[in-house]
């Protein structure tokens, strides 16, 4: 038998197994979508894997440019992914993120968080000292409207609800905060410098505006306005800054793994925290739209909401709601 005839015969024999490949594909698809938990069928997927590996090796040699080989490659990849990574369920994936991803990410971020908080506090103190000593510098940090309002003895937040409805205000605020927070994180891509700049600038602005408001006797009113939403909002700013700094450090000091690998590892470790930040900012935005500007709500109640929401944030980040389940598992 000539080589060509032999190869042709082998190829024919190989292609006769196509129905088996199609069955293997269907089985892998059922498992990957979580539509089957049958142990016997799972064992067959493992058998499929071996069969496909064998047939693919032959197809690569005998039919390198055929669609049969292409098809086998795709089925083999699907079965490989199913066996090695299990099924993919959106609910379970999000739950795993909440139970494991966010607490683990927070543990890793602790030193970065300490640095981010220190930077933010120092910048705020610097901004406060600067405007307290040189009030005219407020023009660098605040808009002319804000300055005029405070100089006339009124906070710019007074009567806010007469101009913009709470729901509109909330959505505008939470959208803006989420974008700023995500941007603070993504700016870590510039070796962490972008993150440090955004964190420092925000701290500086907060301190400067506070100093200016205090000089005009409106410090308590601003604190009352901020307390309900600010505890979480400012914490989230520091958190996303910490995550951005971690990404920046991975790029600046990648170690032996290489820059892209270090960047990827840092980004994947910090990603869950960012998701938590976005979710927390939705709540903070709603509070800022509905609670903070409402003069009918007592300051003590605003403090309770602010502290309560901050504790919820701590619980979420530390994984307290799922701690017992994690311990059991």
């Amino acid at each position: 038998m000539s080589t060509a005839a032999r190869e042709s015969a082998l190829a024919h024999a190989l292609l006769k197994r196509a129905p088996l490949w199609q069955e293997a594909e269907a089985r892998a698809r059922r498992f990957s979508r979580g539509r089957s938990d049958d142990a016997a069928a799972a064992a067959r997927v493992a058998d499929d894997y071996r069969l496909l590996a064998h047939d693919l090796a032959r197809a690569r040699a005998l039919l390198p440019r055929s669609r049969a080989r292409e098809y086998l490659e795709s089925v083999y990849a699907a079965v490989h992914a199913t066996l090695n990574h299990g099924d993919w369920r959106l609910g379970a994936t999000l739950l795993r993120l909440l139970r494991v991803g966010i607490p683990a990410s927070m543990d890793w971020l602790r030193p970065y968080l300490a640095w981010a908080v220190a930077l933010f506090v120092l910048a705020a103190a610097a901004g406060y000292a600067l405007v307290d000593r040189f009030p005219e510098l407020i023009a660098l940090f605040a808009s002319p409207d804000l300055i005029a309002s405070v100089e006339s003895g009124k906070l710019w937040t007074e009567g806010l609800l007469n101009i913009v409805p709470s729901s509109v205000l909330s959505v505008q605020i939470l959208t803006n905060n989420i974008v700023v927070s995500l941007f603070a994180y993504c700016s870590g891509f510039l070796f962490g410098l972008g993150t440090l700049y955004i964190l420092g600038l925000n701290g500086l602005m907060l301190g400067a505006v506070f100093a200016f408001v205090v000089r005009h006797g409106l410090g308590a009113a601003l604190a009352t306005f901020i307390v309900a939403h600010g505890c979480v909002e400012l914490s989230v700013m520091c958190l996303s800054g910490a995550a951005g700094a971690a990404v920046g450090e991975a790029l600046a000091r990648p170690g032996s793994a290489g820059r892209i690998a270090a960047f990827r590892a840092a980004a994947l470790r910090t990603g869950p925290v960012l998701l938590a930040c976005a979710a927390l900012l939705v709540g903070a935005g709603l509070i800022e739209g509905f609670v903070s500007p409402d003069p009918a709500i007592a300051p003590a109640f605003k403090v309770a909401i602010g502290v309560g929401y901050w504790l919820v944030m701590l619980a979420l980040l530390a994984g307290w709601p799922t701690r017992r389940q994690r311990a059991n598992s």
Partner: protein
Amino acid sequence: MSGTAQHLSVDSATGIDVTLPIAGIGARSYAFVADWHIRLVLGLAWYGAAALLYNYLRGEGLSVAPPGANEARWFGIVLSPALALYFLYHPVLELAMRGSTPGKRLAGVRAVTRDGAAPGAGALLLRNVFRLIDSLPVAYGLGLVLVALTREHVRCGDMAAGTVLVYERSSLAFAFAPAGAAGAAGALDLATAELVAELLARWPLLTPPARAALARRLLARCGRAAAELGSLDEAALHRALIEATRAAGAAP
């Protein structure tokens, strides 16, 4: 695992690597442009329909103009959903479709992790968060430059999330080929079976004279008489090709 210019190779326990063809800048751009049009049309359609209904119910006739004052209902019913459709399209659909979107489906690509699996929720969200950087300074400039320059054609979001865009091979296109060839012991040889399958797959893309000529040549290889083929029109040739694969044991 490793990647060459065109393929992502993943080690496997069997010793046979899994290879996934990496999508280049063209396929990525095609997918993005398709998705962009879909989300734009969806957002505009929502805005238009909701605005018309909103203004009509308020007795202001058929108009899409926003009300003069900031109205919470307008914001909640008309504007917010339209913006959400536009801005949350990618993260929500990628989560729901395991790394794919309608545009990616159209371009035949999907996002996978570097070990060939569907990315997790964290990776998919991260991939989308970094669109903020990839879209700088305008029109995804940085993202395009990175895709063009990197070996695996990845943008910043993919680097962060550890994902790669790979081509999805369609199993439908294969339905004729192997089975036709598998049963080809009598009627069709392997090469002819593959060619017949190719021709049937490309039938709509070819001009009528070209596909008729190719069909006659292939059917002649299948043993049909030249005189008989000469009298067949294009539709009859197409039927004859399908019958040839069926006779050889295909599963059309």
